[in-house]
């Protein structure tokens, strides 16, 4: 039987809005798929694009970034700075060949538990349809020590 592909999603969420929103989804007992791994950061302004690259390096098939709505930032302007950075970074990744089906952005406030669930499910579906991120995984393989699984010993 062919195994169903389950994507790994890394979600960078801001402490003040989306993390609390996701918490609300949990306490409200809303059902959501379990593919997203949440990483809590103080603010979306804290997310350096190198985090996103690192997530892909470590085997993520998709990345979701979520924070407070514009104007709601706990630090007043963190998400405005972040938004400007994302516009550039998104265009760069698009030009390099990592399109928007792997990189998602959203605003989810602390009261939007339902929106969070919908977005996570939607992201997981999109990435699942896109399939595993083979190209990046291939790059990872190169630096792993080659191990012959059958023999259980190093091939070299």
């Amino acid at each position, binding site marked *: 039987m062919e195994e169903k592909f389950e994507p790994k999603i890394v979600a960078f969420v801001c402490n003040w809005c989306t993390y609390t929103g996701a918490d609300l989804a949990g306490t409200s007992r809303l059902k959501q798929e379990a593919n997203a791994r949440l990483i809590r950061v103080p603010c979306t302004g804290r997310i350096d694009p190198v985090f996103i690259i690192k997530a892909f390096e470590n085997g993520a098939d998709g990345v979701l970034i979520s924070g407070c709505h514009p104007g709601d930032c706990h630090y007043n302007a963190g998400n*405005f700075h972040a938004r400007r950075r*994302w516009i550039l970074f998104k265009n760069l990744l698009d030009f390099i060949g990592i399109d928007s089906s792997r990189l*998602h952005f959203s605003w989810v406030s602390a009261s939007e538990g339902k929106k969070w669930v919908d977005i996570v499910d939607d992201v997981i579906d999109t990435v699942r349809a896109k399939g595993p991120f083979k190209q990046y995984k291939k*790059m990872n393989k190169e630096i792993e020590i080659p191990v012959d699984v059958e023999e259980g010993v190093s091939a070299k």
Partner: protein
Amino acid sequence: MNELKQICKEALTEKKARFIIAYREDKNKKTKPFIARTPEDAEQIIFNHQAVNNLAVYFPRFKNSGEGKIGIVVKSCDLKAVTALIQENQIKRDDLFIIGVNCSGVVRDTTMEFSNDNTQIKCKYCQAKTPPYYDELAEESKEFEMPDDDQAELMARIEKMSSDERLEFWSAEFEKCIKCYACRQVCPMCYCEKCIVEKSEPQWIDTSSTARGNFSWNIIRAFHMAGRCIGCHECERACPMDIPLTLLTRKMGMVASSEFGYRHGMSLTEPALIGTYSTSDKEDFIK
């Protein structure tokens, strides 16, 4: 030619500048960057089609190095780097003695004579043959034939590709990278005292020249240049593996221009793109 030497000599004699970053011909008859400290040194200063280097790259090493102005010989493309560094508070206009030169194009391959085929693409898009501002101006401006923009063709080709094809194209290009960091060293806008690739706690980017490390390094380098690149094309000239690096920075410049109407290094007073924000930035991609 004598005019430039004369200006430099005067500047050094009258202490208008404590030294001048310029070009000279070395013993192999190559035009190379040179720092003239005395009026006698100024005798060696030249400027020609082979003067490709962007001299603004030398500023960071003279940060807090003493009293007095730093003199620099700049083409109009290099002046954008100077402007950008002033915009980013790396250097003050008052600390500079700018000797502008009218440029008539520079070569792409320094081993060959200047010709239509051997002209840098940036010359085609250079907006001013005469630097927009300066303290002294030298050299005569000569008309020259514009080169073909083969980069624009490549850009159009990539834009037509699907995302998987693009990834394949860039993976193949980045695979060539040997992580010599020449692109970083030669870039006037790469002035961080500690580069992200040298930060090891945690190690953000693999330093060894593996496919993964190369890929991450080149993406991050391009991102750090996004909306900051002034288009001197020095990275691509310095790259020993001929990776089309300026394609990335040029694309990001186009994005900065279309999304924000911003061009770096064009105004001394405008805040840098990434250092500020607008509440009306586009957000149609955010759910």
